[in-house]
């Protein structure tokens, strides 16, 4: 097989749909659809890209528990069966095709899966990559002593059978469509190295990983940087740069300063802070853009608190939020208005939700009609419940603190008392958050796992941690119709059918308002002029998801 581009970049939403419908032939169709850079075959990787990160990547075994910032390294050193492209469409990576019910890769009942692999992939040490490696990887994740990251989906896999070096099958305990997306974040590890280890948690591999990816491990200077070199034998498109360096810079201001001074070629996690955006835009020789992220900044309401049980209260509070002013005045214009928890870049985003209108009179009217009457102190009450609550977030996050003060004032104007009670991150996001001990909280959270539209973990009534559930539905949201839709969505494989289901979920959630959206997170990305092939991807957690395609303009 020829060297194919791993990802697509120039097709429209309609093309994307057609691709998904075509299913298995996608990988054969993609190269023709896209065309291919003329110099791809001839260019020898040259130059170096230094990526700045504000946290230090430390976990290099991609299957072990890790945080977002580690993804930057994983996506460059390893490959998964599939990759999620910027349009939210799965593309084959190590697999020769994305299995669907139409191409027979997934049985009609969704229980039997068959994966076909590429036959031209080698590990960085020269050993061939085969179906045995895939089997080993999936079994390692669920082995009891291994400190694995996400086990959701993987724990449903049974009877993995290697049919041939390029084909394997397995059975799922129940139909679970999101697993396809999960596999796009499940990087394959080499059996021939890890199977020999007595304890995979402390294997030498974890400090010097061997993958199949576009870049090979070179060295790590702990606390400072990680250096990768081009894998000239890479089966996919690229790499074009010879060295890829991930530099750890622990302070956001220093991160920006080093971007300004030219030490950093590209700013990844946690990007350029909003307060530097205006200045960054004017820097000569730098390209600074606003790119949507996957998370939603919103006010979580604890629906089990008596103040928030009445939908009228939630609607009134939402109407009393001047979101435009918050974004412009506090967030330096960095943030995108949205009505949905689904990122706008997702194929499943519902663009037809009613838009919130900031209107204090309307807010008062809603509360009046619902019977919330102002008491002597001006605070409304109904049936002995005063419309007063605490709002919490990480202390020291000064932008959020300004939002709180802003809302405190506007809420007071409609007879609602909001008190500010912030705590350090470790306290805030521990039991207090997970077990829903807050009244209301400002949080920026992602609803999707691996960009799959299934938001069961945050919206299903069985996912309420405070009620013994095993998810993070911290608003304690419970709606039988949403539950049923989420269950159906997780069993349904066709993208179009799924889109209908999740569009409906978004409609109901917009109506119920278990959380009040402030804005969709927006990242300020910066890179040097002349660095080409860079593509942001809100469906991954890192800006370095496709460093294989980066190149310096010659």
């Amino acid at each position: 097989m020829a060297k194919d581009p791993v990802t697509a970049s120039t097709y429209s939403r309609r093309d994307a749909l057609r691709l998904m419908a075509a299913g298995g032939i996608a990988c054969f169709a993609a190269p023709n659809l896209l065309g291919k850079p003329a110099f791809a075959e001839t260019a020898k990787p040259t130059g170096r890209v230094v990526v700045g990160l504000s946290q230090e990547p430390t976990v290099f075994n991609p299957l072990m528990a890790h945080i977002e910032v580690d993804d930057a390294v994983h996506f460059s050193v390893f490959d998964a069966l599939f990759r999620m492209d910027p349009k939210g469409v799965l593309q084959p990576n190590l697999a020769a095709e994305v299995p669907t019910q139409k191409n027979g890769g997934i049985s009609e009942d969704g229980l039997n899966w068959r994966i076909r692999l590429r036959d031209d992939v080698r590990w960085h040490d020269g050993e061939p990559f085969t179906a045995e490696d895939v089997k080993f990887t999936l079994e390692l994740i669920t082995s009891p002593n291994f400190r694995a990251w996400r086990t959701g989906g993987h724990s449903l896999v049974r009877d993995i059978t290697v049919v041939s070096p390029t084909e394997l099958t397995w059975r799922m305990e129940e139909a679970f469509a999101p697993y396809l997306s999960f596999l796009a974040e499940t990087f394959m590890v080499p059996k021939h190295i890890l199977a020999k280890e007595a304890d995979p948690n402390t294997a030498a591999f974890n400090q010097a990983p061997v993958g199949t990816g576009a870049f090979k491990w070179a060295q790590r200077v702990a606390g400072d940087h990680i250096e990768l070199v081009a894998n000239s034998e890479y089966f996919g498109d690229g790499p074009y740069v010879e060295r890829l360096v991930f530099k750890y810079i622990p302070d956001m201001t220093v991160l920006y300063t080093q971007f300004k001074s030219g030490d950093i070629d590209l700013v990844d996690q946690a990007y350029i802070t909003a307060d530097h955006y205006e200045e960054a835009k004017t820097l000569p020789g730098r390209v600074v853009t606003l790119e949507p992220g996957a998370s939603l900044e919103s006010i979580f309401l604890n629906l089990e608190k008596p103040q928030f049980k009445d939908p009228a209260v939630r609607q009134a509070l939402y109407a009393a939020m001047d979101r435009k002013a918050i974004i412009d005045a506090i967030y330096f214009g960095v943030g995108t208005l949205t009505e949905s928890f689904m990122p706008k870049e997702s194929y499943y985003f519902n663009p037809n939700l009613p838009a919130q209108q900031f209107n204090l009179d309307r807010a008062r009217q809603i509360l009046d009609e619902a019977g919330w009457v102002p008491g002597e102190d001006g605070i409304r009450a109904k049936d002995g419940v005063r419309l007063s609550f605490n709002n919490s977030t990480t202390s020291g996050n000064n932008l959020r603190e300004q939002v709180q003060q802003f809302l405190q004032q506007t809420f007071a104007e409609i007879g609602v008392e909001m008190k500010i009670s912030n705590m350090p991150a470790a306290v805030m996001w521990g039991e207090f958050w997970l077990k829903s001990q807050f009244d209301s909280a400002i949080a920026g959270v992602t609803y999707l796992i691996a960009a799959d539209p299934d938001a069961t973990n945050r919206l299903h009534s069985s996912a309420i941690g405070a009620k013994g559930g095993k998810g993070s539905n911290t608003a304690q949201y419970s709606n039988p119709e949403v539950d049923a839709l989420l269950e159906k969505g997780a069993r349904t494989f066709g993208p179009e059918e799924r889109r209908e289901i999740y569009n409906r979920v978004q409609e109901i959630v917009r109506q119920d308002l278990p959380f009040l959206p402030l804005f969709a997170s927006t990242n300020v990305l910066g890179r040097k002029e002349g660095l080409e092939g860079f593509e942001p991807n809100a469906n991954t957690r890192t800006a370095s998801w496709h460093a294989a395609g980066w190149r310096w303009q010659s």
Partner: protein
Amino acid sequence: MRGFLLNRLSQSLVLLLIVSVIGFVVLNLIPGGPLAQFGLDPSMTQDDLNRLKEQLGLNRPLWMQYLDWAWRLVQGDWGHSFRDGAPVLDVIGRHLVATLLLMGSSTVIAIAIGTWIGIRGATHRYSVFDYLATVGAMVALSIPTFWFGLLGIYVFSLRLGWLPAGNMYTIGDGSALNYLHHLIMPSIVLALVHVAIWSRYMRTATLDVISQEFVKTARAKGLSERRILMKHVVGNALLPMITLAGMQLPSVLTGALVTETVFTWPGMGRLFLDSLGYSDYPVVMGLLMFSAILVVLCNLIADIVVAIIDPRIRLS
């Protein structure tokens, strides 16, 4: 001498035991814990968190965790980092070199300049130099290091472009000159505070010696001021400074948190801050024990050195 050593060693062991117990308890009292970093990650379910907790042994009673840790430590096993799985001593070793480089050079600068200013201030008491030195020391002590650091970066890196804005070296250039170029600003910024402290102590110690009878005697014998200063005053004034150096030496190895952050220097101070941030218990405890051992050792060495140099003191 032997009795003195045995006595000090047994005292030190008790001290280390107390430090380790307090450190362990306080560390575990801090809310959050090593799994808090996954709190906002939707893909880690409560089941996954419980599983990790058990795998890391964090669901056992605290005393059991402590005994397990302490018993391994006694056997020479410092444990593995929760973050990258590397042995704790390796983790410390990787950061120690960077810190030694930075702290070593700044200490040398600080001692050299500080001693000179201190002596000169004492011999030219109430002169313009002395006043300037006093005011300068006050300023250096009262302005935070990070401010000096940022000011330096702004002036010398962003405006003038003479010095790098941070980092230990340019990636891809490992030459000694490159290291030196990167070392200039952080070591001077760090030295500022130490110069101030050192010069104040040195001035007081020198004044103390100058007023002694034997200095008057030397003057009466008609020795030159220079000879008195070099032969009689400085040597005696430096004695208390050895103890001070013994107290400062551990900080040379445990790093400078703020300066290392501002200049993105991959040293021990930042390792400590990061490990604390992620509740990486084995590394935090390792660093705590490492610095406790250093403090004990350095004080011991300082005492012995003073005894050897000063014949009036006998260790018994």
